[in-house]
């Protein structure tokens, strides 16, 4: 088919030489060693960032868990007034918010950052500094959101922050702004992690690991990161609309001004339901990874699990309205979502059956991780079945917003996410620390949590059916819920005790304890090839993989890796290096150099965090100053750390393989990162497009008469100019490729005023017709659709000037022009956005017969 290098017929390794081995190890150590002392905070290595990410997520989990215990204390007895109603509202809102946004999603990223590179036999992920940036954004945003409760201003509108309660500042105070801005900030870090993980799975696999040999964990990571890319942006779009209404009075959700509060519910749940699966799939992936180890055989139905992961990823986007069954939508619409909610049980069930089949055909070794995995399946199946019940519209009408729902969602999330995660903690703890956990404490924590959980949440099915609404502050003795609530409270505290045992077990100092033996569980996946004690470089040499379970099926692999017989066994140039491979067959493409420790990412995260936090308080001047600081730090980081021209065009990677040291276009991870980020950006834009059509469907007189439409002629002029600016950017890419550096720079800089005039013409088209975003939803929507490309254009300008400067100073040349290619890719997406907006603002009204 293709003239690929046959990796199975590589020349034999050079004979082992101890002196060479020592010298190589020393050089690798020098390159990958982390900064000493307090400077460790500038580390970017995945093993550090991952560990910090994990501990931080668990800190937020503990915090949110304490809030849950406070909720249970308040509900323990009828007529209780232990906490005020205001505080209680903050408790349950922050509990849900922190569990979802600060624990469940980030923990997926944390675990993936720790184990994914190792499972892939890679030294690190392709963008280590981006991981570090994401982590610092996460911790800053998380502390800001959680800290608000100590000042009595925590968000109190429920974790899904429904409008119009949240859109009217008179009803909801500062808390809602904290929620909106804090979470938007954290979503940015989630999307950064998603980009990192997708590129990691697609481009950083070890040579030879074809798609059919890729471990299940990687499939799940790929699928889930893809889901984040399509699920989170609509919420960012929703956050933007809601914050514009709160801060500047734009009319999006106010029915008096042509808005519709239901729009928020749509945008929230288009995010919110896939999010449940974004939480569930990575945890079930942990079970799929550890189960073969304890069964001692490959997973039964490997491909069926891939099918179910991909299938669930898609179907989960067709479920969002099942959170809105009681909002009065047409019954036929509800039934579509009910049908999809039933259908999603099919692929979900398939993976559970694959697990059971694997256990049936083998003798499973008993162990603490398997104990947690078994408990997880039991709880999750129970929660899944109540899920099928509430997917039925008539039943949901009875159970909606009652404690039955509270019970259902905790069964699915704790069974589907928390218990598998705890199993994973017990399984990978020796991998991370090289020390063993106390198995007796592990069993204690399992039984306490398993028992406590069921005692706490099983009764809630009854309290719910008996009519207890969720989020209720207190109840009367005559309601008849008192006994069951007391039982729930006791169960919650037993559960908390179990978690305390687990936390103690994990955090117990084990300085003097003996190291575990290598590949403790006798697993088949690559992460267990790591040396004991651990080395910062991840893998001594990057092996050729041609099986699904390399440690079982490739004899002598670990010794070969240790002796440095495979690729990149050395770091002669003193640079951190990875091998980038192709998507389908993992053929080596080039050697990528990645950044080492840096304070720039920290500075960028700090400034971005500060500007989001200050925006909450509407301190616009300092917000802008910190925003500029963020841009400055980011440019500095990019200038000194990305697309560097290598000292030599190619290098010897070992075993007769010579690889380029630079790549551009769709060979380079950077290009893919831009492509993936912009796909997410387009999804957010689609959220706005959805909003436009939602108004048009829901409101009969959404489109105004012809004299109130933005002027067609000016829209057309603007479109022509904006497309012209795009053409100039593409032209710059072509001319630089032909060696015309001056012309290329001129085109890049010339595109700035052209684009400015274009967006100016659009602004004028709306301004001249007197469109007022605070008056009508249509006007607000038009201005939003102009503001959106304007913000993107601003970013485009910064990037164009940056690339022009790179050309000027010789960092971007006709031969090495990755920067300009990435910019051109960005501008393709911008052009697509602009054309879509023109269709919405100019053509659609015409089509509907209201235009002139």
């Amino acid at each position, binding site marked *: 088919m293709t003239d690929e290098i046959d990796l199975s017929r590589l020349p034999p390794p050079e004979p082992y030489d101890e002196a060479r081995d020592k010298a190589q190890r020393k050089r690798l150590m020098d390159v990958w060693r982390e900064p000493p002392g307090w400077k460790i905070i500038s580390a970017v290595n995945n093993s550090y960032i991952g560990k910090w990410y994990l501990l931080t997520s668990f800190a937020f989990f503990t915090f949110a868990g304490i809030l849950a215990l406070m909720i249970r204390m308040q509900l323990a007895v009828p007529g209780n007034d232990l906490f005020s109603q205001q505080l209680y509202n903050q408790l349950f809102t922050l509990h849900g918010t922190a569990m979802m946004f600060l624990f469940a999603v980030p923990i997926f990223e944390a675990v993936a950052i720790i184990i994914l590179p190792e499972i892939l036999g890679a030294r690190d992920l392709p963008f280590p500094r981006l991981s570090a940036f994401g982590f610092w954004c996460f911790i800053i945003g998380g502390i800001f959101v959680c800290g608000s409760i100590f000042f009595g201003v925590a968000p109190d509108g429920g974790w899904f922050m429904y409008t119009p309660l949240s859109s009217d500042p008179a009803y909801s105070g500062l808390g809602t702004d904290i929620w909106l801005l804090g979470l938007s900030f954290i979503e940015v870090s989630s999307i950064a992690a998603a980009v990192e993980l997708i590129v990691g799975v697609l481009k950083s696999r070890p040579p030879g690991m074809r798609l059919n040999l890729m471990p299940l964990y990687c499939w799940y990571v790929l699928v889930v990161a893809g889901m984040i890319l399509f699920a989170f942006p609509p919420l960012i779009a929703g956050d933007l609309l809601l914050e514009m209404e709160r801060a500047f009075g734009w009319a999006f959700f106010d029915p008096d001004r042509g808005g519709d509060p239901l729009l928020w519910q749509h945008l929230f749940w288009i995010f919110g339901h896939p999010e449940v699966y974004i939480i569930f799939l990575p945890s079930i992936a942990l079970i799929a990874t550890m189960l073969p180890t304890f069964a001692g055989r490959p997973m039964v139905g490997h491909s069926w699990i891939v099918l179910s992961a991909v299938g669930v990823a898609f179907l989960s986007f067709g479920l969002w309205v099942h959170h809105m069954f009681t909002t009065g939508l047409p019954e036929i619409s509800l039934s579509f979502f009910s049908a999809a909610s039933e259908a999603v049980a099919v692929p979900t069930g398939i993976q559970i059956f694959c697990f059971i089949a694997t256990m049936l055909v083998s003798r499973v070794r008993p162990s603490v991780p398997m104990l947690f995995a078994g408990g997880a399946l039991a709880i999750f199946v129970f929660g899944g079945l109540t899920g099928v019940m509430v997917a039925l519209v008539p039943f949901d009408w009875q159970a909606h917003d009652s404690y039955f729902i509270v019970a259902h969602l905790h069964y699915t999330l704790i069974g589907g996410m928390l218990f598998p995660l705890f199993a994973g903690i017990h399984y990978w703890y020796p991998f991370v620390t090289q020390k063993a956990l106390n198995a007796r404490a592990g069993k204690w924590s399992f039984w306490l949590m398993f028992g406590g959980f069921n005692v706490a949440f099983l009764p809630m099915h009854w309290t719910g059916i008996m009519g207890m609404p969720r989020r209720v502050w207190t109840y009367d003795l005559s309601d008849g819920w008192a006994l069951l609530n007391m039982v729930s409270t006791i169960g919650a505290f037993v559960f908390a005790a179990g978690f305390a045992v687990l936390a103690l077990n994990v955090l117990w100092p084990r300085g003097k304890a003996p190291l575990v033996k290598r590949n403790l569980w006798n697993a088949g996946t690559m992460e267990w090839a790591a040396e004991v004690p651990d080395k910062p470089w991840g893998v001594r040499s990057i092996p050729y993989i041609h099986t699904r379970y390399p440690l079982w099926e490739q004899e002598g692999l670990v010794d070969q890796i240790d002796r440095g017989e495979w690729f990149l066994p050395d770091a002669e140039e003193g640079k951190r290096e990875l091998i980038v491979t192709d998507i*389908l067959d993992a053929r080596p493409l080039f050697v990528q150099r990645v950044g080492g420790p840096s304070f720039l990412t920290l500075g960028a995260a700090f400034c971005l965090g500060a500007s989001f936090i200050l925006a909450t308080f509407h301190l616009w001047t300092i917000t802008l100053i910190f925003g500029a600081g963020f841009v400055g730090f980011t440019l500095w980081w990019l200038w000194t750390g990305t697309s560097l021209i290598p000292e030599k065009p190619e290098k010897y990677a070992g075993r007769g393989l010579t690889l380029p040291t630079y790549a*551009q276009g769709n060979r380079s991870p950077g290009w893919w990162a831009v492509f993936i980020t912009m796909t997410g950006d387009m999804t957010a834009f689609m959220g706005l497009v959805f909003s436009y059509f939602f108004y048009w469907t829901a409101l009969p007189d959404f489109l105004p008469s012809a004299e109130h439409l933005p002027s067609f002629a000016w829209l057309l002029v603007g479109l022509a100019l904006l497309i012209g600016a795009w053409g100039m950017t593409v032209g710059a890419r072509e001319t630089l490729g032909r060696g015309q550096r001056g012309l290329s720079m001129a085109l890049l800089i010339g595109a700035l005023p052209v684009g400015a005039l274009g967006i100016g013409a659009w602004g004028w088209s709306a301004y001249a017709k007197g469109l007022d975003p605070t008056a009508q939803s249509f006007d607000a929507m038009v201005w939003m659709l102009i503001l959106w490309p304007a913000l993107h254009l601003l970013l485009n300008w910064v990037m164009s000037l940056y690339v022009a400067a790179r050309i000027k100073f010789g960092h971007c040349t006709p031969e090495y022009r990755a920067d300009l290619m990435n910019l051109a890719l960005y501008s393709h997406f911008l052009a697509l956005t602009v054309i879509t907006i023109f269709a919405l603002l100019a053509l659609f009204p015409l089509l509907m017969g209201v235009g002139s």
Partner: protein
Amino acid sequence: MRHGSDEQPRHFTPPGDAPRVIDQGSVWILVAAPSIWAAHFLLSYWVAAIWCAKAGPMASLVEPRWIIVALGLISAALIAWLGVIAVRRYGGVFVIFEEITESSERGRDRFVGHVALLLCVLSVVAIGFTVIPGLVFATC
């Protein structure tokens, strides 16, 4: 996906082709069938939402029934066509105990074809789920 200007700096040829994403041996076939499900789902939702919004809450659903049936049949036919490609071009097979672990381009193709085939089946089933309410409901 490939642009003329995406070529590597001259002077050396890296091993193998550039990543082939759309032509034969593409992975897009994996997401094609569920994407058809998604398109069908959204279309059904939009048709129903607009019909019910513009024709009133108690509007009859008997007349647009043929739209629902036609949408379902067209989608199912498209997926069947994808399934044929998965079998013929990729060598996809329908087996329960899958062991396609051969380390070759053909092995990878057969794996992708096999998973694509499974996804075709799942997508048709899910489309069936969406069509049923359209046949049962008489009014919005």
